[in-house]
């Protein structure tokens, strides 16, 4: 069994777009390794292939070649928050989390307890029985994080988790990520907010045009540039 | 604000125009006596699931068509095709046959009505209404001296169907006698006597008395077949009435 929580080896992904099914190579040989208990940041400009890499890891897309190996067996121990999430707006927060818990075959009592716990942790108790269509962007983001944690996952993948959050919300999410790390969980998240990456991540990978152009510890990056922003710009414009 | 007002005025003018036009149209649009009626074959080839629905829709259409024209221009040019369509799609729709047959009288085609009822009876042999109405049609619209016997035949058939009213046999017997089939009439009146109450029995005796010869020997010969068709006690009671006043 691999020691790494996530090991991506030579990952390529080609999609066919348009009426003529023109092939477009999105991932051109991605290699990265996420260690157990890492808080790992996946960075890159828009269109670099970050979300696609995560989707392939989750089985939402099939690789054209290469592989993605997860230390955990199947998706039962994985949690995922998609970018700009959309949920079932006809469900209340409580119903939605209950539904997600049921998909993990969590029994009724445990389900109830877990849902209450997450609603409390995400400060959504007051809105628990309100339909999601009435939730603000920030509330939706928080319920999204809650559903990603419903099964108490070993590996958590968060795509732009801070999007739409006010400063209070962002502090709460950071606290959650820190708590996950303290509890020995592995977190991989995509983000454009480099200050958050700097604060939370131990390791990062920078992608550009379907490849990983740099991977290493945040401390290593800061050895080469005065700030993470400068390092990032240096790598992506090289 | 001005634009909104203008939009409102336009909408109101259009709405007013729509209502005024509708209200000013004649209450009853002149209807063409000749309408398109698809062939039954088209629907018969179509799904069996919707045949009865199509039949019902055309039945309603047929009733409306009849109502529009019978008291109007009196022209029922397409009635026959409509009736044919409805009854072919729904052969057990008895009301359609009945309505259609009588409506065809108004269309000047009682012969077609008669044929329609005959088809209906083939499809619905357990319904006494068909032969009963056929008897009526034969009597009322038949020609020649055999029409009474033809009607009597139909009434006799109707009377034999379970659930048929008792008067049908009386009608058959009366018409048989009128048509000259005295022997048949005698047997039928015997059946009427069997199935009736005291008033019907009295009627049967009166009718038999008028049919039977006055001569005792001939009378005896004429009632002899009743001995085969009636229980002994009833035969005895009937003949006692028929031979009252005759010497023993």
């Amino acid at each position: 069994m691999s020691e790494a929580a996530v090991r991506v080896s030579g990952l390529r992904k080609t999609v066919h777009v348009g009426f003529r099914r023109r092939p477009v190579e999105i991932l051109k040989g991605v290699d990265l390794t996420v260690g157990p208990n890492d808080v790992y940041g996946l960075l890159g400009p828009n269109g670099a292939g970050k979300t696609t890499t995560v989707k392939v890891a989750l089985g939402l897309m099939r690789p054209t070649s290469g592989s993605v190996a997860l230390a955990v067996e199947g998706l039962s121990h994985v949690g995922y928050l998609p970018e700009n999430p959309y949920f079932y707006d006809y469900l209340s927060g409580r119903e939605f989390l209950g539904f997600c818990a049921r998909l993990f075959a969590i029994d009724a009592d445990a389900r109830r307890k877990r849902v209450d716990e997450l609603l409390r942790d995400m400060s959504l108790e007051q809105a628990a029985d309100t339909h999601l269509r009435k939730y603000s962007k920030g509330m939706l983001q928080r319920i999204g994080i809650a559903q990603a944690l419903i099964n108490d996952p070993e590996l958590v993948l968060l795509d732009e988790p801070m999007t739409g959050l006010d400063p209070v919300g962002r502090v709460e999410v950071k606290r959650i990520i820190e708590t996950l790390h303290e509890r020995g969980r592995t977190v991989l998240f995509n983000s454009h907010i480099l200050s958050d990456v700097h604060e939370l991540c131990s390791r990062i990978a920078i992608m550009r045009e379907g490849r990983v152009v740099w991977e290493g510890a945040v401390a290593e990056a800061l050895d080469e540039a005065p700030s993470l922003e400068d390092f990032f710009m240096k790598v992506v414009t090289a | 604000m001005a634009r909104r007002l203008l939009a409102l005025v336009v909408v109101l003018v259009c709405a007013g125009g729509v209502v005024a036009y509708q209200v000013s149209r004649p209450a009853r649009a002149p209807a063409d006596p000749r309408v398109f009626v698809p062939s039954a074959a088209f629907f018969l080839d179509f799904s069996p699931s919707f045949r009865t629905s199509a039949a019902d829709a055309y039945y309603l259409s047929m009733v409306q068509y009849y109502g529009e024209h019978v008291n109007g221009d009196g022209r029922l040019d397409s009635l026959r095709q409509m009736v044919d369509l409805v009854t072919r799609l729904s052969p057990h729709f008895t009301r359609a046959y009945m309505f259609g047959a009588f409506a065809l009288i108004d269309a000047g085609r009682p012969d077609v009505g008669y044929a329609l009822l005959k088809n209906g009876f083939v499809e619905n042999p357990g319904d006494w209404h068909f032969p009963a109405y056929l008897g009526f049609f034969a009597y009322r619209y038949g020609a020649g001296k055999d029409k009474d016997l033809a009607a009597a035949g139909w009434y006799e058939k109707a009377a034999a169907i379970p659930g048929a009213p008792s008067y049908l046999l009386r009608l058959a017997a009366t018409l048989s006698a009128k048509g000259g089939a005295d022997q048949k009439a005698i047997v039928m009146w015997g059946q009427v006597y069997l199935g009736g109450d005291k008033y019907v029995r009295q009627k049967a005796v009166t009718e038999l008395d008028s049919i039977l010869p006055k001569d005792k020997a001939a009378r005896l010969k004429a009632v002899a077949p009743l001995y085969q068709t009636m229980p002994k006690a009833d035969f005895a009671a009937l003949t006692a009435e028929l031979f009252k006043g005759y010497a023993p």
Partner: protein
Amino acid sequence: MNQVVAIAVNTFRETIRDRILAVIVVFALLMIVGGLWLGSISLGEQGRMMIDFGLVAVTFFGLIVAVFVAAGLVHKEVEKRTVFVLFSKPVSRSAFIGGKFIGLCGTMAVVLSGMGIFLFALVWIVNRQPSWMVLAAVVMVYVQLLAIVAVTIFFSTLGSAILASVLGICVFVAGQLSQNVLSLTRLGKNPVTQVFSWVVYVIVPNLSAVDVKAGVVGEQTLAWGQIGLWTAYLLAYVVVVLALAALVFRRKEF
């Protein structure tokens, strides 16, 4: 199994909360108005007209709900990206398709029950006696629509929701004409036409075989044994179509 049940319950909630039940109310109003109107123009055949047109209305409304809701079930999840929430969890594509189908079956049962019971009560009032066959006919309409739901879900895995709806309606119409296709297999002289007719006959579900409308109004003697066999055929057909849908959906990427 848990996932199938969870998705089915969620689908049921989704469709019921989509104000689908308003269909029952519209149907009820239509039947009341229609019934009063029929009473005045049918020359005493109000009961028969009510049964016949009522069952056609149940079929029509049921078909609309079945096709348009089924077409959107899969498509909506992909469009709104809720598939990411679903398939990032241990949920198989087959469980998703199965759950969606079962959930919509539940909704269809509620809608058709509502319409069926209302029609039954109305016919009872008009005819002054209950016509249990009306309820049996509604059950058979439900069986037909199960096949259409399955077929529409299958088409929705292949293309857009609109295309799936249109094809679902086409299959319903074709299913009513199944007997005609069978005739073509026997009457065609060209072997290519015959083979083609056979293929079409096998692929298109024979919906008219379980339709008992004609029997309810006394036009047909119903052979319940045969109808039972055809019902089993349709349920097996549903299983095959859903399996195909799951197979196609397995290849989909999001």
